[in-house]
């Protein structure tokens, strides 16, 4: 099974540059492990949700607003993919992820891993 791991965090929790450095080191190690795992895919780290926009079209009109879709305190900060035999194994990966210490990780199974839309 292929799973998408979504990291939700409060960006104000990431702290000062020294803290970020340590965090990056922890992430570096985790990404290393991820890279060696069969079927895992590199993730992406997002810029601040304030840099984002939300687009919706209705009846031929497109509406664009600044900021994320939801106004939750924690927002998507990044994600990655893993290949695991089941949810239990996926959860183990989530526990290893540095973000589990300061954010929330949502695990979503992927539909039709070999086929796109």
């Amino acid at each position, binding site marked *: 099974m292929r799973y998408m791991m979504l990291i939700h965090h409060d960006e104000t929790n990431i702290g000062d540059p020294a803290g970020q450095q340590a965090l990056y080191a922890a992430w570096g190690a985790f990404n290393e492990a991820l890279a060696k795992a069969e079927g895992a895919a590199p993730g992406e780290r997002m810029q601040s949700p304030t840099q984002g926009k939300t687009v919706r079209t209705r009846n031929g*009109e497109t509406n*664009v607003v600044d900021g994320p879709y939801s106004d939750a305190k924690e927002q998507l900060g990044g994600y990655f993919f893993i290949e695991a035999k089941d949810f239990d194994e996926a959860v183990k990966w989530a526990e290893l992820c540095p973000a589990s210490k300061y954010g929330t990780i949502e695990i979503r199974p992927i539909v039709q891993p070999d086929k796109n839309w």
Partner: protein
Amino acid sequence: MSDTARRAAERAARESYGRLLAFLAARTRDVAGAEDALAEAFASALTAWPEQGVPANPDAWLLTVARRRQTDAYRRNSTSRSGETHLTLMREELDDLAMTPEAIPDRRLALMFACAHPDIDPSLRSPLILQTILGLTAADIGAAFLIPAATMGQRLVRAKSRIAELGIAFEIPDTEDLPGRLDAVLEAIYAAYAKGWNDLVGETGGQLAEEAIWLGRLVASLLPASPEAKGMLALMLYSHARRVARRSPTGAYVPLDEQDTALWDMEAIEAAETLLRAASSAGPTGRCQLEAAIQSAHVVRRLTGTDNWPIIVKLYDILHAMTGSPVVLLNRAAALAETEGPAAALQSIAPLAEDKRMADYQPYWAVRGRLLAETGNREAAHEALTLAMGLSTDPAIRDWLEARRGELMAG
């Protein structure tokens, strides 16, 4: 207030807004400051007029209040002696106007030239004109141009500071510079129309198209000697006349050659014809007049059944020689398919395959798909029609293309 009275009041307010703003900003070149002063004047009117009655000359009243706000603000921000001279000048000008209130000069055209100045980002010219001449909000303009309200607001503020910093003059260019500079103004207005036309189904879109036509009428009336201004207004009216016929009762897309001409707005078409005739007899033929002439030919073909495709191709030839535009080449190809067949038409757009801008240009793939299908190249046609579908923002167009693709595979 009855609907007619309200519309009359709105029309008067709109006329006043652009005129007063253009006048207030002309000397200082501070568009944002003039907007603030005028907004305060309109706000004062809201409290003063119901109590004291509407003044005999509302515009002069608004102008006097706005000028006072403007001089106050100027005094706060300026300590220099030249600032004092400026203030005296403004005061004198104001006094003159108070004596002859009907003489407020119309500087809207000069303001439009400033908004469409070569030093202003082309993508912001149209929004700037919509805001300064019509008083539209950043939110309304942003909605039409797919830009969030706050972002559009910031971009407009920056563009206005640029006008002030560069000291862009509020003037109508000399005769020799006029055609080029006017093209930029007309292009900006047409961009607003095209935005509205593309999402005509929606409420905002339809309104924006109407606003653009209003601006087109304004420019044509302020520049009565310009054939291109008439040509552009005619072009917008031809398109607008067909707006209802573009969709079936169920909302499906209807191409020009299948439209029910009974749904066309004949009054708008006649107005366009009159404008085009006046433009052609007035002077040199410009881009807008040629495009309007092509629209006129389409109307004639549909209404009388005359096969005038050779004339349309000829008009596109002239237009292409003038502009070298890939969009013109593409539209020409669609007409060429009618006179020389799809293979020749495909051949004519071969150079566009090298043009990177075509990769995400929806009309390119739609035309290419149609021509490939007509030459019997099914596989390539399927790919081109799929890309055209993928680049559509309008579900009605996407459905129409999918149906064409289905016919291709079945036939």
